[in-house]
Protein backbone atom coordinates (compact mmCIF):
# COMPACT_ATOMS: atom_id res chain seq x y z
CA UNK A 1 0.00 0.00 0.00
CA UNK A 2 2.74 2.34 0.98
CA UNK A 3 4.50 1.60 -2.29
CA UNK A 4 1.44 2.48 -4.32
CA UNK A 5 0.98 5.70 -2.40
CA UNK A 6 4.57 6.57 -3.07
CA UNK A 7 4.11 6.03 -6.83
CA UNK A 8 0.89 8.01 -6.82
CA UNK A 9 2.54 10.92 -5.02
CA UNK A 10 5.37 10.87 -7.54
CA UNK A 11 2.86 11.09 -10.39
CA UNK A 12 0.79 13.78 -8.67
CA UNK A 13 3.90 15.90 -8.23
CA UNK A 14 4.58 15.69 -11.94
CA UNK A 15 0.96 15.88 -13.09
CA UNK A 16 1.56 19.02 -15.18
CA UNK A 17 4.38 17.39 -17.06
CA UNK A 18 2.46 14.12 -17.54
CA UNK A 19 -0.53 16.01 -18.88
CA UNK A 20 1.58 17.99 -21.34
CA UNK A 21 3.26 14.82 -22.55
CA UNK A 22 -0.13 13.09 -22.87
CA UNK A 23 -1.32 16.02 -24.96
CA UNK A 24 1.67 15.66 -27.28
CA UNK A 25 1.09 11.92 -27.40
CA UNK A 26 -2.53 12.36 -28.41
CA UNK A 27 -1.58 14.97 -30.99
CA UNK A 28 1.01 12.75 -32.69
CA UNK A 29 -1.26 9.72 -32.71
CA UNK A 30 -4.28 11.65 -33.90
CA UNK A 31 -2.54 13.36 -36.81
CA UNK A 32 -0.96 10.10 -37.98
CA UNK A 33 -4.17 8.06 -37.76
CA UNK A 34 -6.24 10.74 -39.49
CA UNK A 35 -3.78 10.81 -42.38
CA UNK A 36 -3.81 7.00 -42.43
CA UNK A 37 -7.62 7.02 -42.72
CA UNK A 38 -7.56 9.74 -45.36
CA UNK A 39 -5.16 7.73 -47.49
CA UNK A 40 -5.93 4.14 -46.46
CA UNK A 41 -9.70 4.15 -47.05
CA UNK A 42 -9.55 5.58 -50.58
CA UNK A 43 -6.67 3.25 -51.35
CA UNK A 44 -8.75 0.32 -50.08
CA UNK A 45 -11.64 1.41 -52.30
CA UNK A 46 -9.30 1.83 -55.25
CA UNK A 47 -7.95 -1.71 -55.01
CA UNK A 48 -11.48 -3.19 -55.01
CA UNK A 49 -11.98 -1.43 -58.34
CA UNK A 50 -8.57 -2.15 -59.82
CA UNK A 51 -8.08 -5.71 -58.67
CA UNK A 52 -4.64 -5.95 -60.25
CA UNK A 53 -3.33 -3.41 -57.77
CA UNK A 54 -4.66 -5.17 -54.69
CA UNK A 55 -1.86 -7.72 -54.41
CA UNK A 56 0.80 -5.07 -54.81
CA UNK A 57 -0.72 -2.53 -52.40
CA UNK A 58 -1.52 -5.02 -49.66
CA UNK A 59 1.89 -6.68 -50.13
CA UNK A 60 3.63 -3.35 -49.76
CA UNK A 61 1.63 -2.44 -46.66
CA UNK A 62 2.48 -5.86 -45.23
CA UNK A 63 6.17 -5.31 -45.91
CA UNK A 64 6.08 -1.95 -44.13
CA UNK A 65 4.33 -3.57 -41.20
CA UNK A 66 7.00 -6.27 -41.04
CA UNK A 67 9.82 -3.74 -40.75
CA UNK A 68 11.01 -3.24 -37.12
CA UNK A 69 9.70 0.14 -35.98
CA UNK A 70 13.07 1.23 -34.60
CA UNK A 71 14.69 0.48 -37.96
CA UNK A 72 11.97 2.46 -39.67
CA UNK A 73 12.73 5.50 -37.51
CA UNK A 74 16.41 5.18 -38.28
CA UNK A 75 15.59 4.89 -41.95
CA UNK A 76 13.45 8.04 -41.91
CA UNK A 77 15.89 10.32 -40.09
CA UNK A 78 18.21 10.89 -43.09
CA UNK A 79 15.22 12.09 -45.10
CA UNK A 80 13.05 13.86 -42.57
CA UNK A 81 15.45 14.69 -39.78
CA UNK A 82 14.28 14.32 -36.21
CA UNK A 83 11.26 15.60 -34.30
CA UNK A 84 7.57 15.13 -34.90
CA UNK A 85 7.66 14.89 -38.71
CA UNK A 86 9.41 11.51 -39.03
CA UNK A 87 7.47 10.25 -36.00
CA UNK A 88 4.14 11.01 -37.58
CA UNK A 89 5.25 9.42 -40.86
CA UNK A 90 6.35 6.30 -38.99
CA UNK A 91 3.08 5.99 -37.06
CA UNK A 92 1.11 6.71 -40.23
CA UNK A 93 2.90 3.96 -42.16
CA UNK A 94 2.17 1.41 -39.44
CA UNK A 95 -1.49 2.45 -39.24
CA UNK A 96 -2.01 2.07 -42.94
CA UNK A 97 -2.14 -1.70 -43.26
CA UNK A 98 -5.12 -2.51 -40.99
CA UNK A 99 -7.12 0.31 -42.57
CA UNK A 100 -6.40 -0.67 -46.18
CA UNK A 101 -6.90 -4.35 -45.45
CA UNK A 102 -10.18 -3.91 -43.61
CA UNK A 103 -11.52 -1.49 -46.20
CA UNK A 104 -10.68 -4.00 -48.90
CA UNK A 105 -12.08 -6.99 -47.02
CA UNK A 106 -15.16 -5.08 -45.87
CA UNK A 107 -16.02 -3.98 -49.38
CA UNK A 108 -15.29 -7.28 -51.12
CA UNK A 109 -17.28 -9.20 -48.53
CA UNK A 110 -20.50 -7.28 -49.15
CA UNK A 111 -23.04 -9.89 -50.22
CA UNK A 112 -22.89 -10.43 -53.99
CA UNK A 113 -26.67 -10.34 -54.20
CA UNK A 114 -26.61 -6.74 -52.90
CA UNK A 115 -24.31 -5.74 -55.73
CA UNK A 116 -26.36 -7.60 -58.30
CA UNK A 117 -29.57 -6.17 -57.00
CA UNK A 118 -28.18 -2.63 -57.02
CA UNK A 119 -26.69 -2.97 -60.49
CA UNK A 120 -29.86 -4.54 -61.80
CA UNK A 121 -31.83 -1.56 -60.52
CA UNK A 122 -29.62 0.73 -62.52
CA UNK A 123 -27.29 2.16 -59.88
CA UNK A 124 -24.05 3.59 -61.20
CA UNK A 125 -20.80 2.28 -59.73
CA UNK A 126 -20.50 5.43 -57.65
CA UNK A 127 -24.04 5.18 -56.30
CA UNK A 128 -23.52 1.52 -55.54
CA UNK A 129 -20.37 2.36 -53.56
CA UNK A 130 -21.85 5.31 -51.73
CA UNK A 131 -25.31 3.95 -51.00
CA UNK A 132 -24.73 0.23 -50.63
CA UNK A 133 -21.18 -1.10 -50.43
CA UNK A 134 -19.62 1.56 -48.22
CA UNK A 135 -22.39 1.71 -45.58
CA UNK A 136 -22.44 -2.08 -45.38
CA UNK A 137 -18.63 -2.27 -45.11
CA UNK A 138 -18.34 0.58 -42.60
CA UNK A 139 -18.34 -1.57 -39.44
CA UNK A 140 -15.42 -3.63 -40.82
CA UNK A 141 -13.57 -0.47 -41.88
CA UNK A 142 -14.08 1.02 -38.42
CA UNK A 143 -12.70 -2.14 -36.85
CA UNK A 144 -9.55 -1.57 -38.92
CA UNK A 145 -9.34 2.05 -37.74
CA UNK A 146 -9.70 0.85 -34.17
CA UNK A 147 -6.83 -1.63 -34.48
CA UNK A 148 -4.68 1.07 -36.12
CA UNK A 149 -5.40 3.67 -33.47
CA UNK A 150 -4.68 1.39 -30.53
CA UNK A 151 -1.43 0.21 -32.11
CA UNK A 152 -0.55 3.81 -32.89
CA UNK A 153 -0.87 4.87 -29.24
CA UNK A 154 1.71 2.25 -28.33
CA UNK A 155 3.98 3.15 -31.23
CA UNK A 156 3.96 6.83 -30.40
CA UNK A 157 6.07 6.10 -27.30
CA UNK A 158 8.93 5.49 -29.76
CA UNK A 159 8.61 9.06 -31.02
CA UNK A 160 10.40 10.30 -27.91
CA UNK A 161 13.56 8.61 -29.16
CA UNK A 162 13.88 11.18 -31.90
CA UNK A 163 12.74 14.11 -29.83
CA UNK A 164 9.08 14.29 -30.79
CA UNK A 165 7.93 14.18 -27.17
CA UNK A 166 4.95 12.23 -25.90
CA UNK A 167 4.71 9.87 -22.96
CA UNK A 168 7.65 7.87 -24.28
CA UNK A 169 9.89 10.71 -23.13
CA UNK A 170 9.08 9.92 -19.51
CA UNK A 171 9.63 6.23 -20.01
CA UNK A 172 13.04 6.65 -21.67
CA UNK A 173 14.14 9.15 -19.09
CA UNK A 174 13.10 6.66 -16.40
CA UNK A 175 15.08 3.92 -18.08
CA UNK A 176 18.23 5.97 -18.41
CA UNK A 177 17.95 7.20 -14.83
CA UNK A 178 17.00 3.71 -13.56
CA UNK A 179 13.95 5.31 -11.97
CA UNK A 180 11.03 2.89 -11.83
CA UNK A 181 8.63 5.57 -10.66
CA UNK A 182 9.45 7.65 -13.70
CA UNK A 183 8.95 4.66 -16.06
CA UNK A 184 5.60 3.85 -14.51
CA UNK A 185 4.53 7.51 -14.71
CA UNK A 186 4.92 7.34 -18.47
CA UNK A 187 3.72 3.77 -19.02
CA UNK A 188 0.48 3.89 -17.06
CA UNK A 189 -0.98 6.97 -18.81
CA UNK A 190 0.03 5.44 -22.17
CA UNK A 191 -1.82 2.25 -21.29
CA UNK A 192 -4.87 4.13 -20.10
CA UNK A 193 -4.81 6.16 -23.28
CA UNK A 194 -4.71 3.01 -25.42
CA UNK A 195 -7.62 1.46 -23.53
CA UNK A 196 -9.57 4.68 -23.77
CA UNK A 197 -9.03 4.95 -27.54
CA UNK A 198 -10.11 1.32 -27.90
CA UNK A 199 -13.22 1.95 -25.85
CA UNK A 200 -14.25 5.11 -27.69
CA UNK A 201 -13.68 3.60 -31.12
CA UNK A 202 -15.56 0.49 -30.03
CA UNK A 203 -18.57 2.68 -29.37
CA UNK A 204 -18.09 4.44 -32.70
CA UNK A 205 -17.92 1.09 -34.45
CA UNK A 206 -21.31 0.16 -33.03
CA UNK A 207 -22.71 3.57 -33.87
CA UNK A 208 -21.77 3.31 -37.54
CA UNK A 209 -23.22 -0.20 -37.88
CA UNK A 210 -26.36 0.31 -39.97
CA UNK A 211 -29.49 -0.01 -37.90
CA UNK A 212 -30.92 -2.83 -39.96
CA UNK A 213 -27.80 -4.94 -39.34
CA UNK A 214 -27.83 -4.70 -35.57
CA UNK A 215 -28.97 -7.78 -33.77
Amino acid at each position, binding site marked *: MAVINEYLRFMMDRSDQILALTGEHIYLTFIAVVIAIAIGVPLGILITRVKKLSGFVIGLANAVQAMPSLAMLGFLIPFLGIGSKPSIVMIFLYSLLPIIKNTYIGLTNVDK*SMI*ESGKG*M*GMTDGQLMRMVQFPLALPVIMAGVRISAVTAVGLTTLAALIGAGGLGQMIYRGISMVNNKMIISGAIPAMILALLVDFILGITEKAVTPK*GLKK
Partner: protein
Amino acid sequence: MIRFENVVKKFGDTEVIKGINLEIGDNELVVLIGPSGCGKTTSLKMINRLIEPTSGTIYINDQDILKSNPIDLRRNMGYVIQQIGLFPHMTVGENIELLPLLKNWPKEKRRKRAEELLDLVGMSPNEYMDRYPSELSGGQQQRIGVARALATNPEIILMDEPFSALDPITRTQLQDELFNLQQELKKTIVFVTHDMDEALKLGDRICIMRDGQVLQFDTPEVLLRHPSHGFVEEFIGKKRMWQQPEYVKVEDIMIQNPIKAMPARTLTQAMEIMSASGVDSLLIVDDKNKLIGIATAGDIRQNWDKAKKLDEIYKREVLGVRPEDSIVEVLKMMAQNNIGYVPVTDAKGTLKGLITRSSLVKVLGEKYVG
Protein backbone atom coordinates in the same frame (compact mmCIF):
# COMPACT_ATOMS: atom_id res chain seq x y z
CA MET B 1 -41.67 -6.58 -77.04
CA ILE B 2 -38.36 -8.29 -76.34
CA ARG B 3 -36.63 -10.06 -79.21
CA PHE B 4 -33.51 -12.21 -79.20
CA GLU B 5 -31.83 -12.63 -82.56
CA ASN B 6 -29.16 -15.32 -82.91
CA VAL B 7 -27.87 -14.52 -79.45
CA VAL B 8 -24.68 -16.33 -78.51
CA LYS B 9 -22.82 -16.08 -75.21
CA LYS B 10 -19.43 -17.58 -74.57
CA PHE B 11 -17.64 -17.65 -71.25
CA GLY B 12 -14.06 -18.32 -72.30
CA ASP B 13 -14.28 -21.23 -74.68
CA THR B 14 -17.59 -22.60 -73.45
CA GLU B 15 -20.62 -21.58 -75.37
CA VAL B 16 -23.43 -21.25 -72.82
CA ILE B 17 -25.99 -19.73 -75.18
CA LYS B 18 -25.87 -21.27 -78.62
CA GLY B 19 -27.67 -18.84 -80.85
CA ILE B 20 -31.16 -18.41 -79.50
CA ASN B 21 -34.09 -16.65 -81.12
CA LEU B 22 -36.97 -15.61 -78.93
CA GLU B 23 -39.83 -13.22 -79.12
CA ILE B 24 -41.61 -12.14 -75.97
CA GLY B 25 -44.78 -10.18 -76.50
CA ASP B 26 -46.09 -7.23 -74.52
CA ASN B 27 -48.09 -7.96 -71.36
CA GLU B 28 -46.99 -11.56 -71.52
CA LEU B 29 -45.58 -13.62 -68.67
CA VAL B 30 -42.94 -15.83 -70.16
CA VAL B 31 -41.20 -18.48 -68.10
CA LEU B 32 -37.67 -19.59 -68.96
CA ILE B 33 -37.12 -23.06 -67.58
CA GLY B 34 -34.61 -25.85 -67.85
CA PRO B 35 -32.07 -27.83 -65.87
CA SER B 36 -29.24 -25.92 -64.22
CA GLY B 37 -26.66 -24.72 -66.68
CA CYS B 38 -29.17 -24.51 -69.51
CA GLY B 39 -28.63 -20.79 -69.91
CA LYS B 40 -31.93 -19.52 -68.59
CA THR B 41 -30.47 -17.08 -66.06
CA THR B 42 -27.81 -15.97 -68.54
CA SER B 43 -30.54 -15.22 -71.06
CA LEU B 44 -32.46 -13.22 -68.47
CA LYS B 45 -29.44 -11.19 -67.43
CA MET B 46 -28.71 -10.32 -71.02
CA ILE B 47 -32.01 -8.46 -71.15
CA ASN B 48 -30.80 -5.89 -68.60
CA ARG B 49 -27.20 -6.20 -69.76
CA LEU B 50 -25.83 -7.58 -66.52
CA ILE B 51 -24.38 -10.03 -69.03
CA GLU B 52 -23.57 -8.95 -72.56
CA PRO B 53 -24.01 -11.31 -75.49
CA THR B 54 -20.91 -12.40 -77.40
CA SER B 55 -22.78 -12.04 -80.67
CA GLY B 56 -26.34 -11.53 -81.82
CA THR B 57 -28.74 -8.77 -80.93
CA ILE B 58 -31.44 -8.19 -78.35
CA TYR B 59 -34.18 -5.72 -79.18
CA ILE B 60 -36.67 -4.09 -76.88
CA ASN B 61 -39.43 -2.45 -78.87
CA ASP B 62 -37.19 -2.75 -81.92
CA GLN B 63 -34.36 -0.85 -80.24
CA ASP B 64 -31.03 -2.63 -80.03
CA ILE B 65 -30.33 -2.62 -76.28
CA LEU B 66 -26.59 -2.85 -76.82
CA LYS B 67 -26.77 0.64 -78.24
CA SER B 68 -28.62 2.06 -75.25
CA ASN B 69 -27.21 3.23 -71.94
CA PRO B 70 -27.23 0.25 -69.57
CA ILE B 71 -28.05 2.42 -66.55
CA ASP B 72 -31.15 3.88 -68.22
CA LEU B 73 -32.08 0.48 -69.57
CA ARG B 74 -32.01 -1.05 -66.08
CA ARG B 75 -33.86 1.85 -64.49
CA ASN B 76 -36.74 1.17 -66.83
CA MET B 77 -37.02 -2.47 -65.84
CA GLY B 78 -37.91 -4.18 -62.61
CA TYR B 79 -35.50 -6.79 -61.35
CA VAL B 80 -36.23 -9.38 -58.68
CA ILE B 81 -33.63 -11.97 -57.67
CA GLN B 82 -33.71 -15.20 -55.72
CA GLN B 83 -31.66 -13.88 -52.81
CA ILE B 84 -34.20 -11.07 -52.63
CA GLY B 85 -31.44 -8.46 -52.51
CA LEU B 86 -33.15 -5.97 -50.23
CA PHE B 87 -30.60 -3.58 -48.78
CA PRO B 88 -30.37 -4.49 -45.09
CA HIS B 89 -29.31 -1.01 -43.99
CA MET B 90 -32.36 0.61 -45.51
CA THR B 91 -35.92 0.43 -44.25
CA VAL B 92 -38.66 -1.14 -46.30
CA GLY B 93 -39.72 2.34 -47.41
CA GLU B 94 -36.18 3.36 -48.36
CA ASN B 95 -35.73 0.17 -50.33
CA ILE B 96 -38.89 0.73 -52.34
CA GLU B 97 -38.11 4.41 -52.84
CA LEU B 98 -34.55 3.82 -53.97
CA LEU B 99 -35.15 3.76 -57.71
CA PRO B 100 -37.58 6.70 -57.58
CA LEU B 101 -34.88 8.50 -55.58
CA LEU B 102 -32.28 7.75 -58.24
CA LYS B 103 -34.73 9.11 -60.77
CA ASN B 104 -35.05 12.28 -58.68
CA TRP B 105 -38.71 11.99 -57.79
CA PRO B 106 -39.82 14.52 -55.15
CA LYS B 107 -40.10 13.19 -51.62
CA GLU B 108 -43.92 13.17 -51.33
CA LYS B 109 -44.35 11.38 -54.64
CA ARG B 110 -41.86 8.72 -53.54
CA ARG B 111 -43.58 8.14 -50.23
CA LYS B 112 -46.99 8.01 -51.84
CA ARG B 113 -45.77 5.45 -54.35
CA ALA B 114 -44.23 3.33 -51.59
CA GLU B 115 -47.55 3.36 -49.74
CA GLU B 116 -49.44 2.34 -52.87
CA LEU B 117 -47.04 -0.49 -53.53
CA LEU B 118 -47.13 -1.82 -49.97
CA ASP B 119 -50.91 -1.89 -50.25
CA LEU B 120 -50.61 -3.64 -53.58
CA VAL B 121 -48.52 -6.47 -52.15
CA GLY B 122 -50.82 -6.76 -49.18
CA MET B 123 -48.65 -5.21 -46.47
CA SER B 124 -49.86 -2.36 -44.31
CA PRO B 125 -47.79 0.80 -44.99
CA ASN B 126 -48.20 2.00 -41.40
CA GLU B 127 -46.84 -1.18 -40.00
CA TYR B 128 -44.03 -1.97 -42.42
CA MET B 129 -42.77 1.28 -43.95
CA ASP B 130 -40.09 1.87 -41.32
CA ARG B 131 -39.16 -1.70 -40.56
CA TYR B 132 -35.85 -3.20 -41.62
CA PRO B 133 -35.70 -6.23 -43.94
CA SER B 134 -34.18 -8.38 -41.18
CA GLU B 135 -37.38 -7.94 -39.19
CA LEU B 136 -39.50 -9.51 -41.92
CA SER B 137 -40.12 -13.13 -42.90
CA GLY B 138 -38.75 -14.46 -46.20
CA GLY B 139 -42.14 -14.20 -47.86
CA GLN B 140 -42.63 -10.62 -46.69
CA GLN B 141 -39.14 -9.72 -47.86
CA GLN B 142 -39.83 -11.02 -51.34
CA ARG B 143 -43.14 -9.14 -51.43
CA ILE B 144 -41.07 -6.02 -50.81
CA GLY B 145 -38.69 -7.21 -53.52
CA VAL B 146 -41.60 -7.35 -55.95
CA ALA B 147 -42.92 -3.98 -54.76
CA ARG B 148 -39.48 -2.45 -55.27
CA ALA B 149 -39.32 -3.80 -58.82
CA LEU B 150 -42.66 -2.12 -59.53
CA ALA B 151 -41.62 1.20 -57.99
CA THR B 152 -41.29 3.26 -61.15
CA ASN B 153 -44.01 1.31 -62.93
CA PRO B 154 -41.71 -0.28 -65.53
CA GLU B 155 -43.10 -2.08 -68.56
CA ILE B 156 -40.74 -5.01 -68.21
CA ILE B 157 -39.99 -7.00 -65.08
CA LEU B 158 -37.26 -9.61 -64.87
CA MET B 159 -37.58 -12.23 -62.16
CA ASP B 160 -34.74 -14.66 -61.50
CA GLU B 161 -36.08 -17.61 -59.48
CA PRO B 162 -37.76 -15.16 -57.12
CA PHE B 163 -39.63 -17.70 -55.04
CA SER B 164 -37.31 -20.69 -55.00
CA ALA B 165 -35.73 -19.88 -51.63
CA LEU B 166 -39.11 -19.73 -49.89
CA ASP B 167 -40.88 -22.53 -48.06
CA PRO B 168 -43.52 -24.36 -50.14
CA ILE B 169 -46.54 -22.72 -48.52
CA THR B 170 -45.21 -19.18 -48.84
CA ARG B 171 -44.07 -19.96 -52.37
CA THR B 172 -47.57 -21.04 -53.41
CA GLN B 173 -48.98 -17.92 -51.80
CA LEU B 174 -46.60 -15.59 -53.62
CA GLN B 175 -47.20 -17.38 -56.91
CA ASP B 176 -50.91 -16.78 -56.53
CA GLU B 177 -50.31 -13.16 -55.61
CA LEU B 178 -48.04 -12.65 -58.60
CA PHE B 179 -50.63 -14.23 -60.86
CA ASN B 180 -53.34 -11.91 -59.56
CA LEU B 181 -51.03 -8.92 -59.75
CA GLN B 182 -50.27 -9.75 -63.35
CA GLN B 183 -53.98 -9.96 -64.21
CA GLU B 184 -54.27 -6.45 -62.88
CA LEU B 185 -51.04 -4.83 -64.05
CA LYS B 186 -50.40 -6.61 -67.34
CA LYS B 187 -46.62 -6.22 -67.36
CA THR B 188 -44.20 -7.97 -69.62
CA ILE B 189 -42.60 -10.41 -67.20
CA VAL B 190 -39.68 -12.71 -67.90
CA PHE B 191 -39.56 -15.28 -65.14
CA VAL B 192 -36.79 -17.82 -64.62
CA THR B 193 -37.45 -20.98 -62.64
CA HIS B 194 -36.47 -24.63 -62.49
CA ASP B 195 -39.82 -25.64 -61.05
CA MET B 196 -42.23 -26.99 -63.67
CA ASP B 197 -45.27 -26.60 -61.42
CA GLU B 198 -44.45 -22.94 -61.01
CA ALA B 199 -43.96 -22.54 -64.75
CA LEU B 200 -47.30 -24.15 -65.60
CA LYS B 201 -49.04 -22.11 -62.95
CA LEU B 202 -47.71 -18.72 -63.99
CA GLY B 203 -46.58 -18.79 -67.59
CA ASP B 204 -48.62 -17.52 -70.50
CA ARG B 205 -45.90 -19.18 -72.49
CA ILE B 206 -43.05 -21.41 -71.37
CA CYS B 207 -39.65 -21.57 -72.96
CA ILE B 208 -37.89 -24.85 -72.28
CA MET B 209 -34.12 -24.62 -72.59
CA ARG B 210 -31.28 -27.11 -72.52
CA ASP B 211 -27.56 -26.68 -73.15
CA GLY B 212 -27.97 -23.10 -74.28
CA GLN B 213 -30.70 -23.83 -76.76
CA VAL B 214 -34.42 -23.32 -76.85
CA LEU B 215 -36.14 -26.69 -77.25
CA GLN B 216 -39.72 -25.53 -77.26
CA PHE B 217 -41.46 -22.23 -76.64
CA ASP B 218 -45.20 -22.62 -76.38
CA THR B 219 -48.24 -22.24 -74.19
CA PRO B 220 -48.44 -24.66 -71.25
CA GLU B 221 -51.25 -26.50 -72.95
CA VAL B 222 -49.35 -27.18 -76.16
CA LEU B 223 -46.27 -28.18 -74.18
CA LEU B 224 -48.24 -30.72 -72.22
CA ARG B 225 -50.16 -32.11 -75.11
CA HIS B 226 -47.59 -31.92 -77.88
CA PRO B 227 -44.08 -31.91 -76.47
CA SER B 228 -41.89 -31.42 -79.51
CA HIS B 229 -38.93 -33.23 -78.09
CA GLY B 230 -38.32 -36.30 -75.98
CA PHE B 231 -36.47 -34.19 -73.47
CA VAL B 232 -39.36 -31.76 -73.17
CA GLU B 233 -41.72 -34.60 -72.41
CA GLU B 234 -39.33 -36.04 -69.89
CA PHE B 235 -38.67 -32.67 -68.30
CA ILE B 236 -42.34 -31.84 -67.99
CA GLY B 237 -42.97 -35.29 -66.63
CA LYS B 238 -44.99 -37.87 -68.50
CA LYS B 239 -47.73 -38.00 -65.95
CA ARG B 240 -47.86 -34.23 -65.58
CA MET B 241 -50.80 -33.72 -67.89
CA TRP B 242 -52.92 -36.01 -65.78
CA GLN B 243 -52.20 -33.93 -62.72
CA GLN B 244 -53.70 -30.90 -64.39
CA PRO B 245 -57.25 -32.10 -65.20
CA GLU B 246 -58.02 -28.94 -67.13
CA TYR B 247 -55.41 -29.97 -69.67
CA VAL B 248 -56.85 -33.45 -70.18
CA LYS B 249 -59.08 -33.38 -73.24
CA VAL B 250 -62.07 -35.46 -74.16
CA GLU B 251 -60.15 -36.97 -77.07
CA ASP B 252 -57.53 -38.30 -74.68
CA ILE B 253 -60.02 -40.46 -72.84
CA MET B 254 -62.93 -41.18 -75.18
CA ILE B 255 -63.75 -44.56 -76.64
CA GLN B 256 -62.71 -44.17 -80.26
CA ASN B 257 -65.17 -46.56 -81.90
CA PRO B 258 -68.43 -46.46 -80.02
CA ILE B 259 -71.15 -48.94 -80.87
CA LYS B 260 -73.56 -47.24 -83.20
CA ALA B 261 -76.56 -48.04 -85.36
CA MET B 262 -78.65 -46.43 -88.07
CA PRO B 263 -82.29 -45.60 -87.36
CA ALA B 264 -83.45 -48.19 -89.93
CA ARG B 265 -82.33 -51.08 -87.68
CA THR B 266 -85.06 -53.15 -86.12
CA LEU B 267 -85.32 -53.48 -82.37
CA THR B 268 -84.24 -57.08 -82.53
CA GLN B 269 -81.14 -56.19 -84.48
CA ALA B 270 -80.43 -53.42 -82.04
CA MET B 271 -80.63 -55.77 -79.05
CA GLU B 272 -78.37 -58.19 -80.87
CA ILE B 273 -75.74 -55.51 -81.54
CA MET B 274 -75.81 -54.44 -77.91
CA SER B 275 -75.46 -57.89 -76.47
CA ALA B 276 -72.72 -58.81 -78.94
CA SER B 277 -70.71 -55.74 -77.95
CA GLY B 278 -71.56 -55.89 -74.28
CA VAL B 279 -73.04 -52.40 -74.07
CA ASP B 280 -76.40 -51.10 -72.92
CA SER B 281 -76.91 -48.22 -75.31
CA LEU B 282 -76.54 -47.44 -79.00
CA LEU B 283 -75.60 -44.16 -80.61
CA ILE B 284 -77.85 -43.47 -83.55
CA VAL B 285 -76.13 -41.99 -86.60
CA ASP B 286 -77.25 -41.16 -90.11
CA ASP B 287 -75.54 -42.41 -93.22
CA LYS B 288 -72.92 -39.66 -92.93
CA ASN B 289 -71.98 -40.78 -89.43
CA LYS B 290 -73.67 -37.72 -87.98
CA LEU B 291 -74.99 -38.23 -84.49
CA ILE B 292 -78.75 -37.91 -84.38
CA GLY B 293 -79.73 -39.60 -81.15
CA ILE B 294 -79.32 -42.40 -78.67
CA ALA B 295 -81.24 -45.51 -77.69
CA THR B 296 -80.73 -47.49 -74.51
CA ALA B 297 -81.56 -51.11 -73.80
CA GLY B 298 -84.25 -49.85 -71.41
CA ASP B 299 -85.94 -47.81 -74.13
CA ILE B 300 -85.98 -50.79 -76.45
CA ARG B 301 -87.39 -53.16 -73.84
CA GLN B 302 -90.13 -50.69 -72.92
CA ASN B 303 -91.22 -50.32 -76.54
CA TRP B 304 -90.65 -53.91 -77.55
CA ASP B 305 -94.30 -54.47 -78.42
CA LYS B 306 -95.18 -51.04 -79.75
CA ALA B 307 -92.41 -50.34 -82.21
CA LYS B 308 -90.45 -52.10 -84.86
CA LYS B 309 -87.56 -49.86 -85.74
CA LEU B 310 -85.16 -47.74 -83.80
CA ASP B 311 -86.34 -44.75 -85.80
CA GLU B 312 -89.59 -44.78 -83.84
CA ILE B 313 -88.13 -44.81 -80.38
CA TYR B 314 -84.66 -43.25 -80.15
CA LYS B 315 -84.10 -40.14 -78.11
CA ARG B 316 -83.44 -37.16 -80.33
CA GLU B 317 -82.03 -34.83 -77.76
CA VAL B 318 -78.57 -35.78 -76.70
CA LEU B 319 -76.06 -33.84 -74.66
CA GLY B 320 -72.72 -34.00 -76.41
CA VAL B 321 -69.18 -32.72 -76.00
CA ARG B 322 -66.39 -31.82 -78.39
CA PRO B 323 -63.05 -33.66 -78.59
CA GLU B 324 -61.21 -30.53 -77.43
CA ASP B 325 -63.34 -29.99 -74.33
CA SER B 326 -61.64 -30.59 -71.03
CA ILE B 327 -62.39 -33.54 -68.85
CA VAL B 328 -63.49 -31.18 -66.11
CA GLU B 329 -66.46 -30.04 -68.20
CA VAL B 330 -67.43 -33.61 -69.00
CA LEU B 331 -67.39 -34.61 -65.36
CA LYS B 332 -69.49 -31.58 -64.50
CA MET B 333 -72.00 -32.37 -67.22
CA MET B 334 -72.30 -36.00 -66.17
CA ALA B 335 -72.84 -35.08 -62.57
CA GLN B 336 -75.33 -32.30 -63.22
CA ASN B 337 -77.50 -34.27 -65.62
CA ASN B 338 -77.00 -37.58 -63.92
CA ILE B 339 -76.03 -39.33 -67.11
CA GLY B 340 -73.58 -42.18 -67.53
CA TYR B 341 -72.50 -41.53 -71.08
CA VAL B 342 -71.67 -38.55 -73.25
CA PRO B 343 -71.20 -38.85 -76.99
CA VAL B 344 -68.38 -36.86 -78.59
CA THR B 345 -68.99 -35.00 -81.84
CA ASP B 346 -67.05 -32.51 -83.87
CA ALA B 347 -68.30 -29.11 -84.95
CA LYS B 348 -70.31 -30.63 -87.82
CA GLY B 349 -72.03 -33.11 -85.54
CA THR B 350 -70.07 -36.11 -86.81
CA LEU B 351 -69.69 -38.81 -84.18
CA LYS B 352 -66.12 -39.06 -82.93
CA GLY B 353 -66.38 -41.14 -79.83
CA LEU B 354 -68.07 -41.76 -76.54
CA ILE B 355 -67.33 -41.26 -72.91
CA THR B 356 -69.02 -43.49 -70.40
CA ARG B 357 -68.59 -43.83 -66.67
CA SER B 358 -66.78 -47.09 -67.10
CA SER B 359 -64.45 -45.72 -69.80
CA LEU B 360 -63.62 -42.81 -67.51
CA VAL B 361 -62.80 -45.08 -64.62
CA LYS B 362 -60.73 -47.32 -66.84
CA VAL B 363 -58.65 -44.55 -68.41
CA LEU B 364 -58.13 -42.51 -65.27
CA GLY B 365 -57.36 -45.64 -63.32
CA GLU B 366 -54.60 -46.52 -65.75
CA LYS B 367 -53.07 -43.07 -65.59
CA TYR B 368 -53.16 -42.54 -61.86
CA VAL B 369 -52.72 -46.03 -60.52
CA GLY B 370 -50.95 -47.95 -63.29
